[in-house]
């Protein structure tokens, strides 16, 4: 494994004309420190002749989990990865159960999750369950905290999670197969096959996993065994990219996920044998055409999300939402240092949800955007983006984002960049908030956010030992208005635009890459201070102002290391989650916890093209009794053994 190495130059011609070399990670692109240098180790051959949307996200913090970081979690879910590798807090209702994210002091509905450019949050709930997103569905996960509706659209208030599959051209046939055997009946398998030449790139990934999750936990001093928490989960991903001539590219992707989960009852609550089936079918296709100064892209997607829930008390509740959407955009590199992208998006939702009544509900949403990037000087980058959404009923405001980055210092060893951005954001009321019966409120206003952030990035590079240390500090503040909250009414609960919430905080991260010889180390540490509270409310909002929001830890931190040496590997993750209040008055709380996981592995070459990787993974190594979410048990120390066969 090498640090940034060779780059093929063929599509760069086009990229340069557009004012970008989008084929590269940000570091190589412009001297701006890469958000995650691990990325530079593995993607030297990537060539995508287009402009990535993050080119227009100047001044915003962004970090990447690349295939190296994801590979240990090949049979896991994004919830596992994000929990272990980032300082993000995901409310976890149990292992494999609902995992809902909170970014920068907002709720899960305020995080946009995009797959190949399309929002995949469940339209009914307006959020994603990260336990339903297997890691094998993407090869790269980019996380951009903070408001960015101009770039990513609806719901990018607290942050955005971008899932993508990076194409490796000319890599030939590659494949791998993995089998896992672990505690509490964990059995998992993953099969991945890749093919690419200079014209066609195909990736297929299959995942199956099941677990009984009949782990032991403590209720007070009583040891109990968890019931009704088993699951079966499968995922199929198919990515396809075909080059049409020198300038055109056809891409298509399929991602099918299916999970059949028993719903883990809360500690001390009645087991009503709740069970949920979640199925998502996601298909997308697109065409991209790149000329000297222009790029045209058209994409369409069709999603079907099914949630069927059943328990002894309420019986069966079914939900099926189909989303059809299209995006078109045109990028014009009208000068070597300036480019403009304009585009539009249309979405059509068709919801057949028991909670909405017998007839299907349909809704159309549209938005148009313009993204502008201008580098007035080699060390100064600016972007100005704007989006206007068109919704049924009430209109969200125009959401602009302005960002700037300035490389203040650049020497062979040191680079220091300053960055700042300001952004408006919006969140459209979810289908549940609008149509759920009883209570759904069709008159809800979209939520609006107004946020700022500023930060500094320092990169230290010491070539003799291949050392690279990147440190980033970001401060932010955001006000979210018309915050929607469900409140009890005379006979039922109803969502209303009740309050204003102010979230502010600090994020610090540092990453070290070091390769003195055969030994290679990557270490990452990150810390987040998140202060989020209600600042104003309507008379109907009885929750007090000035208290930290429930389930928003003030302090979170993550520390991970990846060591490689002569075929051996050791990966450790240490994650700290501070105390979380469980009520709006900030009186009751869940204690903080520190989780340690580690993986030891050995790669053995068994034949010219064949390698074998044996991994022993240990979780919660300190045997901590903890709860991520209120009253849901989590397992004590447990582990898994994995065997991976790699071909080429």
């Amino acid at each position, binding site marked *: 494994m090498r640090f940034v190495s060779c780059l093929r130059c063929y599509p760069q011609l086009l990229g340069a004309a557009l004012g970008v070399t989008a084929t590269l990670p940000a570091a190589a692109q412009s001297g701006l420190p890469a958000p995650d240098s691990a990325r530079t180790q593995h993607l030297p051959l990537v060539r995508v002749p287009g402009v990535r949307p993050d080119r227009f996200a100047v001044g915003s913090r962004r970090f990447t989990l690349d295939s190296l970081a994801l590979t240990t979690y090949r049979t896991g879910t994004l919830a596992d990865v994000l929990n272990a590798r980032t300082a993000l807090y995901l409310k976890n209702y149990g292992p494999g159960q609902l995992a809902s994210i909170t970014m920068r002091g907002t709720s899960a509905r305020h995080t946009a999750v995009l797959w190949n450019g399309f929002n995949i949050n469940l339209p009914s709930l307006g959020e994603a369950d990260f336990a339903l997103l297997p890691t094998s569905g993407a090869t790269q996960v980019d996380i951009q905290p903070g408001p960015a509706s101009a770039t990513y659209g609806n719901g990018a208030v607290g942050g955005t999670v971008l899932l993508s599959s990076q194409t490796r051209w000319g890599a030939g046939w590659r494949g791998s197969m993995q089998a896992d055997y672990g505690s509490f009946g964990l059995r998992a398998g993953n099969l991945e096959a890749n093919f690419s030449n200079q014209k066609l790139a195909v990736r297929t990934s299959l995942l199956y996993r099941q677990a009984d999750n009949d782990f032991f936990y403590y209720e007070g001093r009583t040891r109990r065994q968890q019931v009704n928490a088993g699951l079966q989960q499968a995922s199929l991903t198919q990515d396809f990219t075909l080059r049409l001539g020198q300038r055109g590219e056809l891409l298509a992707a399929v991602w099918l996920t299916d999970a059949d989960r028993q719903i883990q009852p809360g500690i001390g*609550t*009645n087991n009503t044998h709740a069970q949920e089936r979640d199925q998502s079918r996601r298909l997308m296709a697109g065409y991209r055409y790149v000329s000297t100064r222009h790029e045209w892209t058209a994409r369409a997607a069709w999603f079907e999300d099914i949630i069927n829930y059943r328990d002894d008390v309420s019986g069966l509740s079914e939900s099926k939402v189909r989303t059809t959407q299209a995006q078109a955009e045109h990028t014009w590199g009208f000068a070597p240092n300036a480019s403009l992208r304009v585009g539009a998006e249309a979405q059509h939702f068709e919801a057949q949800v028991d909670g909405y009544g017998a007839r299907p509900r349909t809704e159309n949403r549209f938005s148009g955007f313009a993204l502008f990037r201008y580098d007035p000087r080699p060390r100064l980058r600016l972007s100005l983006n704007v989006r206007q959404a068109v919704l049924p009923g009430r209109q969200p405001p125009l959401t602009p984002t302005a960002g700037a980055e300035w490389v203040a210092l650049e020497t062979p060893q040191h680079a220091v960049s300053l960055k700042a951005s300001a952004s408006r954001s919006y969140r459209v009321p979810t289908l549940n908030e609008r149509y759920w019966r009883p209570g759904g409120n069709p008159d809800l206003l979209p939520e609006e956010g107004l946020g700022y952030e500023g930060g500094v990035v320092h990169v230290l590079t010491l070539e003799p030992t291949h050392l690279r240390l990147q440190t980033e500090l970001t401060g932010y503040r955001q006000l979210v208005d018309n915050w929607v909250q469900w409140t009890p009414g005379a*006979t039922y609960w109803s969502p209303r635009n009740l309050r204003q919430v102010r979230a502010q905080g600090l994020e610090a*991260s540092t990453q070290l890459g070091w390769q003195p010889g055969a030994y290679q180390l990557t270490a990452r540490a990150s810390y987040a201070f998140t202060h989020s509270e209600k600042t104003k409310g309507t008379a109907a909002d009885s*929750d007090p102002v000035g208290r930290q929001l429930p389930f928003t830890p003030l302090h979170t931190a993550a520390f991970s290391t990846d060591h490689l040496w002569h075929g051996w590997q050791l990966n450790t993750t240490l994650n700290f989650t501070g105390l979380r209040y469980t*009520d709006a008055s900030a009186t009751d709380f869940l204690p*903080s*916890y520190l989780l340690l996981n580690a993986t030891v592995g050995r790669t053995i070459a068994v034949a010219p093209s064949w390698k074998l990787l044996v991994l022993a993974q240990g979780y919660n190594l300190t045997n901590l009794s903890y709860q991520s979410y209120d009253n849901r048990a989590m397992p004590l120390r447990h582990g898994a053994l994995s065997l991976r066969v790699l071909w080429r």
Partner: protein
Amino acid sequence: MTLFSTFPSSAARLLLGSVLALGLASCDSDDEPEAVDIPSNSVLVLNEGNFQKANAEVSVFSKNTNEVLYKSAFSAANKESLGDVAQNISLQGSTAYIVVNNSNKLEAVSLPNFKRVGKVENLKLPRYFVANGSKGYVTETIAYDGQPGQVSVINLNSYSVAKTITVGKQPERLLLVGNRLYVTNSGDNTVTVINTTTDQVEGTITVGDSPNSLAQDFEGNVWVLSGGKVAYNADYSVDYTRTTKGSLAKIIPGQLTVATTLEMPSNLSSPNRLTINGTKNELFYTYQNGVYLYPVGNATLATSPIIRRNFYALAVDPVDRTVYGGVASFTSTDKVIRYRTGAPGNAYTAIDSFSVNIGPNGFVFN
């Protein structure tokens, strides 16, 4: 920036900080039981808690010092959570009985230390409980699919179910009058009368739609409050053309018919939480976002409230006539507001309030 100025020290600090935080956290959850000592002249407030969170609790308010002595008495005394959705608390002698609906159990704790003395598990969505010496009766919904509910007879020596008696749909509060047990069937328009000597159904009395609560007055008569049947449109908005009015019915013990029925002035709200004062001549109930008072014997029901506030719990102190109202938000620490009046007929005014736990839904006076 200083925190992360160099990598190794930052990692060390992070680790150290986390370990410290962990140490503090474990100090918080001290394992030694905290002594609970509930004095006389106190009020036990039952906090329902959030569904599925098993954070139901009992708070204890002292009338001597006018302060909350224990916010979470059950877990303080027993070092475990009370359970999920506490529905009802009642007192017999020095034993308090707590029905925990979504934990399907009945907890018995003794005063003053509030330690558990018994537990009955595997009930079927239990709602309300009444003790009768060494026997107890608990209403159970069983399911919300239209099947009839039941009353389980509990042996309070062995804490086991001795017998189950089928009653009407969704039985709610129940009242013991001599050797008769009156059970409100809120899914129907009936009250089931059970003979507590034989534990057999003696008969069924038809009352207004959806009876939910009841009380016995100074003359020995039983008053049953019916909420009225709420009819919904397809979109779950209330269809007031088909919604029936609530009513208050008087039953003379021994009779299986209603002696008098007084109808509520409007069907826009369902009356609930019938309770009676210490001298048993004033009935209080919640209705139209307020508290209404019915002096026993009046020919009509009041059209205006004595307190304009929406309560999730309502009780009247049998000794000093103070009205206790529980305000439930279910999102934050909730409160109880107390009201007093001078002479009968005077206005009720709030005297103070105190914070309890989440969702106060009932009181008992010790």
